[in-house]
């Protein structure tokens, strides 16, 4: 299918793109997997089943999943309000949704800690109910919800904006109440976007570092997350162990990314 190309620059852009991609992304990532593969299966097993790693993995995946669920619920509600209703301050609210994307994670980390610490703006009220947020798994969950929330809104928003009112009108004409219309007609249309948003939030949360390490307290076995464990292995010059944990995290992230792509592709087929 050799076709003559009208537009120039194929070789130049191909050469530069592939070279740059290889140097900055592919070769370094390959080096990581090679480093990890140098260890035998028994050493992998030993690293991946150490109690400290299992505790960190439980906290990371548990808090990430919980945060992604809450982000999804909040995200659905906020997106609905932003898309369907008109009220003063809506544009400001819409712009603010991106704050966690734009705010450097270290800043998010220290300010969330300041708010949820026992003497902080929110922390003091939680404290009087006997809840300690900062330096606890709850703090990790709060930071990850902050980070994950915009993913759900920004995934759902375009879908909701394109969703016409015809279906709702049809359902309403057929006698369905508003509540039924929402759950039976509107909500099912948003499920794929919600799943995608959830997965993006979850995947981001697993690797999140800056916003979590200040609020978590970083106690091994209790409030230590996986990325921090990688850093501490590195600081003890255990390069192989760090590479093994990182390789494991990467494989999980890639599987999640792959699942999202699969879901998006199936949806595109449906639409055409």
């Amino acid at each position, binding site marked *: 299918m050799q076709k003559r190309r*009208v*537009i*120039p*620059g*194929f070789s130049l*852009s191909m050469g530069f*793109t592939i070279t*740059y*991609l290889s140097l*900055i*992304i592919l070769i*370094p990532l390959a*080096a*990581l997997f090679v480093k990890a593969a140098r260890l035998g299966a028994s050493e992998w097993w030993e690293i991946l089943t150490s109690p400290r790693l299992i505790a960190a993995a439980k906290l990371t995946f548990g808090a990430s999943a919980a945060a992604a669920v809450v982000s999804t619920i909040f995200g659905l*509600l*906020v997106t609905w*309000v932003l898309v369907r*209703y008109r009220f003063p301050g809506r*544009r400001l609210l819409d*712009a*603010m*949704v*991106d*704050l966690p*994307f*734009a705010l*450097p*994670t*270290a*800043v*998010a980390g220290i*300010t*969330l800690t*300041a*708010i949820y610490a026992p003497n902080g*703006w*929110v922390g003091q009220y939680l404290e009087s109910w006997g809840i300690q947020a900062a330096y606890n798994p709850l703090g990790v969950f709060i930071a990850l*919800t902050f980070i994950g*929330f915009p993913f759900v809104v*920004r995934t759902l928003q*375009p879908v909701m904006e394109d969703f016409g009112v015809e279906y*709702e*009108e049809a359902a*309403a004409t057929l006698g369905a109440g508003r509540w039924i219309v929402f759950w039976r007609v509107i909500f099912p249309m948003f499920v794929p976007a919600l799943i995608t948003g959830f997965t*993006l939030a979850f995947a981001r949360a697993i*690797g999140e*570092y*800056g916003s979590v390490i200040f609020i978590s307290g970083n106690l091994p076995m209790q409030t230590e997350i996986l*990325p921090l464990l*990688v*850093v501490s292995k*590195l600081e003890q010059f255990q390069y192989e162990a*760090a*590479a093994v944990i*990182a390789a494991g*995290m*990467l494989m999980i*992230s890639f599987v999640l*990314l792959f699942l999202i*792509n699969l879901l998006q592709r199936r949806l595109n087929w449906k639409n055409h």
Partner: protein
Amino acid sequence: MRHCSAISESAWVRRLLIGVAVTIISVFLLLPLAAVFAEAFRKGWEIFLASLHEEAAFSAIKLTLIAAGISVPLNTLFGVSAAWLITKFRFRGRSLLLALIDLPFAVSPVIAGLVWVLLFGAKGWFGPWLELHDIRIIFALPGIVIATMFVTFPFVARELIPLMETQGSDQEEAAIILGASGWQVFFRVTLPNIKWGLLYGVLLCNARAMGEFGAVSVVSGHIRGETNTLPLHVEVLYNEYQFSAAFACATLLAFLALVTLGIKSAVEHLTGHQSSNHQ
């Protein structure tokens, strides 16, 4: 404004939902932002200004500007080149390339730093060779730059690809047929069409480059006055319990975030275009 009740909620349900959404955003997003400024000014203006007027803060700001000044233009060049390749041509492996460009989004910042330590660190692949030739990459500026490049890699490309895909290449083809050279087409036809998207991508790339923490923290070594970027300087101050100073420096980064969001909203308003960027 009258609403047809069949396809809308009753007024009180609407008010309730708006109230809940405003509460979520206020408590979850605005409160932390307000806290940055409140903590920074807690001990007054003098302390705030003194914290910024410090040698270590100056060198951190300088290093942040240098790192972003190198990595953002390079990633912009890459973004334009990748977007040109992907939207103007059809070739085998095109969708694989698209997926690979997104790859850094799936990589934890810590791992983005780790890969460079494994390559260039004292015990890394090229470590002994670098030591022999007295070249420092890890715990020095080059490491900070390459780690920043890794994390900010996809931003410009992600912004340009959907934009250039929808614009098609009819105009470019017409220009070529009329006798324009490749570079003329790019600068006279393509660039004016994509300028807002490009600006926007560069802006997001820059915000992330200046604010990056995890990846840079792994490769920097935290040498005060030498290899601390602004986010790392904030961390160091915070860990030394100099909270007011930490938050004073954090206000600079928060301000950068607000400016980024402001320009983003303005560009969206001007062009009616929504970001496809998710990080």
